[in-house]
């Protein structure tokens, strides 16, 4: 059962990473256009440039 002392904190940490990643995607407005992004990724003339 000693293994739990590692496993539980690890599982909490990994879950926390997921949570923080979700917060980041929210903050950077990645859910504003799910419909469009779905089509954009398959587009030939993918022309999005990083923001300057």
């Amino acid at each position: 059962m000693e293994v739990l002392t590692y496993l539980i904190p690890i599982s909490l940490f990994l879950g926390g990473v997921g949570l923080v990643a979700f917060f980041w995607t929210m903050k950077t407005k990645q859910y504003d256009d799910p419909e469009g992004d779905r089509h954009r990724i398959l587009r030939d003339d993918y022309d999005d440039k990083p923001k300057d």
Partner: protein
Amino acid sequence: MALAENPHPAACPACVAAPDMSDIRDRDPARAGPVRLELSLPGIHCAGCISGVERALQAVPGVASARVNLTLKRASIEAGAEVSADRLVEVLDRAGYEAHELDATALSATGTDRAGRDLAMRLAVAFFANMNVMLLSVSVWAGAADATRDMFHWLSGAIAIPAVIFAGVPFYRSAWGALRRWRLNMDVPISLALVLALALSLWETWLSGHHAYFDAALSLVFFLLLGRYLDHRTRASARSAAEELTALEVPKALKLEGGRESEVHAADLAPGDRVLVRPGGRVPVDGVVETGTSELDRSLMTGESLPVFASAGHEVSAGEVNLTGPLTVRVIAAGRETSLHRIADLVAVAEAGRANYNSLADRAARAYAPVVHLMALGAFVGWMWISGGDMRLSLNIAVATLIITCPCALGLAVPAVTAAASGRLFRSGLLIKDGTALERLAEIDVVVFDKTGTLTMGAPLPEGLESLSDEERAVALALAEGSAHPLSRALVEAARHAGAEPAAVTEVREVPGYGVEGRFAGRTVRLGRADWVGARPVERTATWLALGEADPKPIVFADALRPGAEEAVAALRAAGKRILLMSGDTAAAVAAFAGRIGIDEHVAEALPADKAARIRDLTTEGHRVLMVGDGLNDTAALAAAHVSISPASALDAARVASDIVLLGRDLAPVADAVDTGIRARKRIKENFALSTVYNVVAVPFALLGFATPFLAALAMSASSVTVSLNALRLR
């Protein structure tokens, strides 16, 4: 070394080719800061549309960037101040995409987004905590005992207590708001269940008890937040789009004072002031024309399709559109006194009547909330008596009852269906402004249509251009190009479409209120009103073409049918609805049109109050009316009807008064909307039935004291998931 010789070392050839942004700014110092323009694109649906629109927009000189949002069917453009939205709409129109301007400054998207983001954050926290606590709970259910179980409970508590406190805030706030006014809403039992579950679980954990409800509390918060979030998404997107449509029309007036014009708010005008109404502008006040001649389009006010002549001494009323020449108008009534505003007051009266509508969810909540409390209280009192005062046992059973009866699926039942149905309708170009509109749509049995601007485009289409000679057509085109009158513009478009080229007409000048005049091959040529060119007027909308002394020839116009109008009428009739046509137009025009589109019952020359009264009559006869209209004369009727739809081209007041806005040009989705409404109501009822069944099965277990946290979690998740899946069948 080769790289070092390059003055602009760059990673790729494209970057070399692309001009440096700072260069552009330096070269163009006069340019004001970039402006943000927003366009609504109701017709786009695929990857090809995104590329097509973005490419067309980026090809316009001055456009810095254009990005399409397919979800909102909207494009945002950053461009120099010289680029106008009208120009972009025109460009897109030529590229084959329907577009409408949106007021970028009125975008409250950031404000509504914040509430949505807040809910999503809480949802994420609830989900994260729930998953972790479930892992621990599963181990407990699987048989962890003694110290291990206690440790798992403590860990669960450490995760669950802060998570539930944070994630449940929307419910506590709403429950507190209701309690403060001595009322009960759905959020009261929810908050109570959450608080009691946490407190009891903490107590049990302290006493090394077997059961803790941390996971149940978290599941409850998670599923309820999911319902709240779906509900918010549906409302927020519809509301922001509706607001944008509204923000387009600001009631401004050009006031004339001592020979100078100044822009003022229409409400600030007083009787006796003089205002200038430019061609293309809307008359802001009720008044009398002092100088100028023009024609007025009154179709939005009265439903008349023919433009009306106006010159000095004629009365004009607010809301009419000036077509050809500038008019100076002396104000008789402004602001609240105008006929326009009096109609708006009619709307307020009618709307007050409709606010009493009880949605299915309201009715369910009102019946359910007391039941939940009473049952939990009953369980507590009953077990105190049976067990002879065992507080711990009784409280455990009461909390289990509270959790199991908690309206988890009920909170999802309606939002999940509304979200699915609204999404489906939005894809076909309909914007649901009011949450209960779908339910009301399902109840209608009579459909009332307005004619001008609703079943028709409100734009004329010339007929019989082929009967003119090539020369006449070329001259007509050349003359028509000299005017912004809607008939001229329609003529230009149709003639161009037929392949005509403008003739070399010189000295083209517009005579406001009468027509266009020019010289061609040594003769005076005229295009305009019958009496002006020397012809006898006909019954229908027409303009006349006179070449020199030759007999004038009429060019007759018909109002173009809105695409999908016939399909919509046919589909509604097939669905067994009674269909009426109500118009302010002349009896002859209405009868002819009704025959063409296949509507038997029609009312002509209806005044705004008549339309509303007729709808109230139908309502008192026990009918539920769907009103489809666009004009100011329809506004009161739209508000009086059980549910109402207006096209995006409608007057602001009409859109505000209606529950659903048709974003596209096509009318066919109206029939689809009624069908979707019926199916949505069916799904909502099924969902209520489903969650009731779960409760009926689970509540006896809870009351008898057999409910375990495991059973509670199972019942809750199963009912929530079934309800959501059932809603998804609508998509």
